[in-house]
């Protein structure tokens, strides 16, 4: 850190408690925030190029490697896109099992972020290990919740990270009823812990801060969205996922190896828990809505710091949804429906824990991949993260650098950014002049 009468620089070499590596440059001029740039400097991994020329059957196992936290999101968006291109529909218990797999990912990802990564920010602890001294019960709950989510992935996916059972048309193997019911008791415990977690996080001290986001999420006629739905926004967007590129575009910016996604007409938008919750509050079970009301979270939430409450509510929802699916499970006759390749283009868009994960694949007649486009949630949220940082910093410019640094890091963690997915994070430089 350097400071003069006209300028000062705050530098944080790496942001902790995010997935991946990057940095932040905050430039302050004449007492105002001139720019806030989220610099993502992890090298590109070229997954889209890697997939070209390979068989459609290889996609689920390759794209799972994009992320160790949310591999299911990539697998689900991919298999839906493949099936969309080849005219296949997966229904019934196979569809339910896909939702169950997604429940597992939401539970483990949200529990990790809420308890281990995000909560310490609100209580002044540098990390969850220090927080465990004063809040051991909460940290234990987080670990138990995470384990419950992992168990779903292990049972359904074959292993808890980078599952191997997903294939176009369904699964390589489906569980027996007995196997699935072994998850019931741990999930009932997890559901109760999730409800307690919601009440606990709702009492955290939240900064008074709101943004006029344009929320974007999937919306399904009957369900809180995981795998399917139309793409809607809090303003005027209501489109088929195949039309994503008519409303959204990716731009390269010099300070990031991850492309920035923007609304063509309006710029930054927000995906993830706040958007999902606000656009789909009426699709949540009555129990979850009631708990939201009990803890004082309104159906529309524009305070990004309260995303931690929404994640806890979504964890509760995922536990309840998993229990519902397991209770009525009947093993399907076949583990997968037949998938016959044909030339065409397919689209997939599912709700990763951090927001929509959009895929487009172009196939040759034999199912060979010709072109791919993958838009992960964190790259879509980058412009909103930068807008939040500028706004948050503007309110506290008179504060010491350490305060600004901490609040900026907390602001970034509101998004649970998966920088490895988006390509990648955090170093904070504040330049004052």
């Amino acid at each position, binding site marked *: 850190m350097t400071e003069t009468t006209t300028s000062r620089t705050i530098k944080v070499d790496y942001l902790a*408690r995010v*997935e991946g590596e990057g940095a932040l440059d905050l430039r302050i001029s004449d007492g105002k925030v001139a720019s806030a740039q989220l610099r993502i400097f992890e090298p590109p991994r070229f997954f889209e190029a890697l997939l070209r020329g390979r068989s459609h059957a290889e996609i689920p196992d390759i794209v799972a490697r994009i992320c*160790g936290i949310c591999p299911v999101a990539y697998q689900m968006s991919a298999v839906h896109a493949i099936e969309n291109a080849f005219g296949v529909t997966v229904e019934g218990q196979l569809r339910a099992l896909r939702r169950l797999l997604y429940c597992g990912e939401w539970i*483990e990802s949200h529990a*990790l972020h809420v308890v*281990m*990564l995000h909560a310490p920010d609100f209580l002044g602890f540098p990390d*969850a*290990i*220090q927080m*465990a*001294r004063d809040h*051991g019960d909460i*940290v*234990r709950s987080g*670990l*138990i919740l*995470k*384990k419950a989510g*992992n168990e779903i992935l292990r049972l359904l996916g074959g*292993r*808890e*990270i*980078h599952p191997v059972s997903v294939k176009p048309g369904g699964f390589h193997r489906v569980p027996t009823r007995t196997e699935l019911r072994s998850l019931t008791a741990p999930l009932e415990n997890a559901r109760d812990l999730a409800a307690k977690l919601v009440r606990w996080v709702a009492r955290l001290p939240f900064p008074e801060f709101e943004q006029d986001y344009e929320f974007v999420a999937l919306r399904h006629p009957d369900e809180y969205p995981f795998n399917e739905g139309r793409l809607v926004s809090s303003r005027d967007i209501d489109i088929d996922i195949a039309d994503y590129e008519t409303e959204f575009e990716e731009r390269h910016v010099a300070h990031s190896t991850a492309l920035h996604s923007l609304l063509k007409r309006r710029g930054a938008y927000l995906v993830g828990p706040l958007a999902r919750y606000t656009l789909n509050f009426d699709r949540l079970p009555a129990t979850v809505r009631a708990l939201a009301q009990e803890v004082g979270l309104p159906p529309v939430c524009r305070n990004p710091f309260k995303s931690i409450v929404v994640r806890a509510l979504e964890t509760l929802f995922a536990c309840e949804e998993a229990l519902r699916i397991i209770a009525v499970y009947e093993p399907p006759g076949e583990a997968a429906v037949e998938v016959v390749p044909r030339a065409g283009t397919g689209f997939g868009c599912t709700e990763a824990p951090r927001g929509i994960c959009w895929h487009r694949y172009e196939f040759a007649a034999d199912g060979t991949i010709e072109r791919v486009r993958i838009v992960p949630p964190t790259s879509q949220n980058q412009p909103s993260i930068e807008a939040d940082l500028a706004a948050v910093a503007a309110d506290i410019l008179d504060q010491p650098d350490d305060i600004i640094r901490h609040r900026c890091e907390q602001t970034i963690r509101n998004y649970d950014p998966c920088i490895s997915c988006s390509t990648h994070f955090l170093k904070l430089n504040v330049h004052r002049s």
Partner: protein
Amino acid sequence: MSGSGRRRIMVVGIGNPDRADDGAGLAVASHLAGRLPNDVALIARSGDILGLVQDWIGYDALICADAAAPMGQPGQVHRLDAADGKLPPGTSLTSSHAFGLAEAIALARELQLLPPTVTVYAIEGACFNAGAPMTPEVAAAVGQVAGLIAADCRLGAGPKPKSLIDRPAGYRNIGLRGPTRKVGPMFCTGLKTGLTPRLGGADAIFVRSYDAAEVGLAKSALAGLARRGFPGR
């Protein structure tokens, strides 16, 4: 302690098999499969390290094998007692995730979920490139660590002794006194007689210390040995 009165030991091999020397811990676990006493739990973890905190609840002793960051001596084996102290930063274990073994152990300690005895075998790596083969020095150390862990399990899996600690077969009681109290849990190989041992350069001192409460005592004894001019091995 399990209901049978025997110590419950868990052995964990940790790593990423697709990143060269990062696979060392997993290779140790593979090496040990079928070679440990039946009541020793052996697991391999290549993903969620944090989940280990739940896995080792109820165990009396935890033995971990993992890769360590390069420090100039590939294949060098560091045996670390992690029950009551942080893992040394100089041997920080590698992990491609935010939570590595050191963090999992520290968290378990805060939550009082850490087994009383925690031993970490950290194998110093040289190459962690995706898809690269394990370096020969690290591959050679895998067998060595597996042998050490197997010995630990054979010695530690027996009934908990009534006295402070019992003497394993083949070892003689050194019978030294520590700075403040009599030291019991010290044995060494290569001794012809007990009570007033003279250690040579080739002698290995074995401190049997499977309870955290005994670690301080053992360290005191080692310090006493050093003061008396015995080889500090």
